[in-house]
């Protein structure tokens, strides 16, 4: 029972990170239909910012907002330079563009920083743990869960109350109609990228605080997982992204904890097969996007 509770905390921590990443992908996808492969590189940029801040002796409390800000700036620049020229192209064109961006950035990291994994200096408190009701929980796990909850609440308020957030939701339902109502395409898209950069930045801080190192490929794997989470939840649906992220986190953690040792090596294939099996029954995901229903014949 203790093990189950313990793993559930872990699952929330990992699932929360996936959820934030999947949300970042979903915000951009819902508006312009782009599956952004380079989302992982936004994470890596935030990770390197943390690393350099640590080296320069900047306090962690300052380094975190700085890292998130860097990811946001990088996301907006990425849109301006790479994605604006292909904005009205097919989904495949945009996806391929994004993987070219991802590839170029990874090589740049390798050349300009290092091909090897670099240590990130973290405050000592993150590696400590506290005991709550007999459970030993790492501070970094608690931080991850708290940060995820805070971000989700922030996002909910932003999307429901803020003008830009409402404009984004309108654009996600029907971009052309939203533009006819006077919503500026460039503003909404830049906003979506900034938001996805912010989410990637937060996710990167959480990710790095579990591993205390960063390498050029750091963002790749979690973002691939986030793609899968976004599909599982229903691509383009924000609530779906959160649900898919958490579900994937749970599947992975529970498999790691409870799969017999002989099958541990097949953890990833088994986990993904479960996802595929769920998708067979719900091809549009757990919570399908609203825009799916609105195609007019």
């Amino acid at each position, binding site marked *: 029972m203790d093990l189950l509770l313990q793993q559930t905390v872990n699952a929330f921590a990992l699932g929360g990170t996936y959820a934030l990443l999947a949300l970042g992908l979903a915000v951009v996808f819902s508006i312009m239909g782009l599956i952004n492969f380079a989302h992982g590189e936004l994470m890596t940029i935030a990770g390197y910012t943390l690393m350099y801040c640590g080296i320069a002796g900047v306090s962690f409390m300052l380094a975190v907002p700085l890292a998130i800000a860097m990811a946001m700036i990088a996301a907006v620049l990425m849109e301006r330079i790479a994605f604006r020229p292909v904005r009205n192209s097919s989904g495949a064109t945009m996806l391929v563009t994004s993987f070219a961006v991802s590839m170029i950035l*990874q*090589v740049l990291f390798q*050349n300009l920083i290092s091909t090897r994994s670099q240590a990130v200096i973290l405050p000592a408190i993150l590696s400590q743990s506290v005991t709550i009701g007999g459970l030993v929980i790492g501070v970094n796990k608690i931080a991850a869960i708290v940060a995820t909850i805070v971000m989700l609440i922030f996002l909910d308020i932003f999307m429901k109350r803020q003008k830009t957030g409402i404009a984004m939701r309108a654009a996600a339902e029907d971009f052309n109609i939203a533009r006819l109502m006077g919503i500026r395409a460039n503003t909404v898209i830049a906003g979506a990228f900034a938001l996805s950069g912010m989410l990637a930045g937060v996710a990167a801080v959480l990710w790095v605080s579990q591993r205390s190192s960063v390498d050029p490929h750091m963002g790749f794997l979690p973002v691939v997982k986030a793609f899968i989470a976004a599909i599982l939840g229903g691509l383009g649906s924000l609530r779906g992204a959160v649900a898919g992220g958490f579900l994937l986190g749970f599947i992975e953690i529970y498999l790691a904890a409870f799969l017999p040792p002989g099958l541990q090596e097949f953890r*990833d294939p088994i986990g993904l097969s479960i996802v595929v099996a769920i998708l067979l029954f719900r091809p549009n*995901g757990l919570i399908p996007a609203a825009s799916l229903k609105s195609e007019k014949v």
Partner: protein
Amino acid sequence: MITSPRKHIIVSVTAIVLAVVVAAVLATVLGTASERVLTVFFISLIAVVGMGVYSGNSGILTFGHLSFMAIGAYAASLLTLPAQLKIATLPKLPEWLATTEMGLLPATLIAVLLTCAVALLIGLAIGKLEGSAAVISTLGLLIIVHGIAIGWRDVTRGSQTFFGIPREASLWVAAIGVIIALIVARLYRDSISGLRLRAGRENAIAASAVGVRIRRERLISFVLSAALMALSGALIAHFLGAISPKKFYFTDTFLLLAMLIVGGMTTVTGAITGAVTITIVIEVLRRFEGGFTLAGWDMPAIFGTTQIGIGLIILFAMFRKPDGLAGLKEWEERLFPGRPGTKAAPDIAQSAKAEPLTATGMTMQFGGLVAVNDVALTLNPGEITGLIGPNGSGKTTLMNMLSGVLVPTKGRFYQGTTELSGLVSHEIANRGIARTFQNIRLFDTLSVYQNVLVAALSTNGGKNAHGRAQAALTRMGVADHADEDAGTLSYGDQRRVEIARALACQPSLLFLDEPAAGMNRDETDNLTETLRALTRDLGLGILLVDHDLKLINQLCDRIAVLNEGHLIAEGTPQDIRNNPVVIEAYLGPNRQD
């Protein structure tokens, strides 16, 4: 089986064989280094066209096809690996496999068949997904197969190198392989299945409405492309002599995808163009990677020059040529435009199933909105029925239900005594009900002739398809445009092609959704004549939705009027013109009362 002119195929196949043989001879003359480069190029090209067979024709990008390459490579290698080595390195193999030792050819064949079986199962599973979900699911496939290859140590040696594979894949073996792959891919593109799949790629709803079973065609191309990937995998394993799961993962996936996309994934020409371009760029950049001297300046060694080069080429291609360097047509199609010569059928044959369509209680609810509410309607052969009503009264929704595009919330409809409700779009098209769409849905990058041919091939068992296609084009007066791309036609011509496409299904009942929209008076009058002739000559029943009341009044034997989802009147044009309820629906209540 092949839908394009024989000339295209002959020219293309000859060119493929010639090019491969000439390249191979040249490489042999130039020496071992070029032989190696060319062999790898040939094997990669097999994989690129393999991915193209699925992605190009279906329009669904794939990240997962290297898993089929991995399955092919491991399966073939397990069969050719010397028995003694197998016993030493893989002690836990089952007895029958450990003692098997065969040549490259039978091993490759078995590996390809095995991969086909696996692809069939996977294709059945992920075939349900659409759009971006289908793309990402292939990413999942790659990770799953990679994970299995690493985990299944008893058979694959896990993440360690699987070595000792006999190096039997020489340049000429690869050359034969690539010739086979290119010809298969080229033939598939213009096969009936390939043409149907391309129609589905252009417009899935319209393709179903002319009888195409998109999922089945997708599955066929998925399995075929997996077979080519397995061939490529078996050859690369027997060229390198050693493989590991890493070889079939993201790095190579991106490299091969880059080749496919830069060249243009919809054609074999594009796959070749892309593979050649990227290979040349890699070979050139690789020489710069270790640093070089330019005009007296020492350039530093830059790690990953090739990757940056490939990345920039992709960006350039996507910004400037999103359809790829080779565009959307094969070179021989550009050079020799045309279509297969046909003995034009005298005219469209009369459909056998001349039975009335009876619908009762048709209701469609979208959330809280009832778009169509309890409507009953009968459509008779040889009769033109007009369906009119203000905007949003449910006309198109009713038509969508009767053609299987939407599933009614309530209500049933019958053809004679056969129930049609519950059937999907392509099944209804096969029962002799064809339609056009309010917002034109043509297969834009296919020629006008192919647009109509797909419909003829996918209905009535595809009998005399070329004749029916030609006759339908002639009937609608668009035969002169047959070789043009449908997307380039004028609005009025596109409407006529859409009707021709519906006629090619040899329907007994034709649904026309605003056929005269965007036509001028002369064109509309012509259309009136054409439609009248269709009912007179062929005994066709027509359901006509339009806002042009002159057209409706001239043409219709009977008119049904919808308002806010209800059928408010039905009768002859004369009755409807004098019906106070109809006048009120259109003009509002009379204030003088």
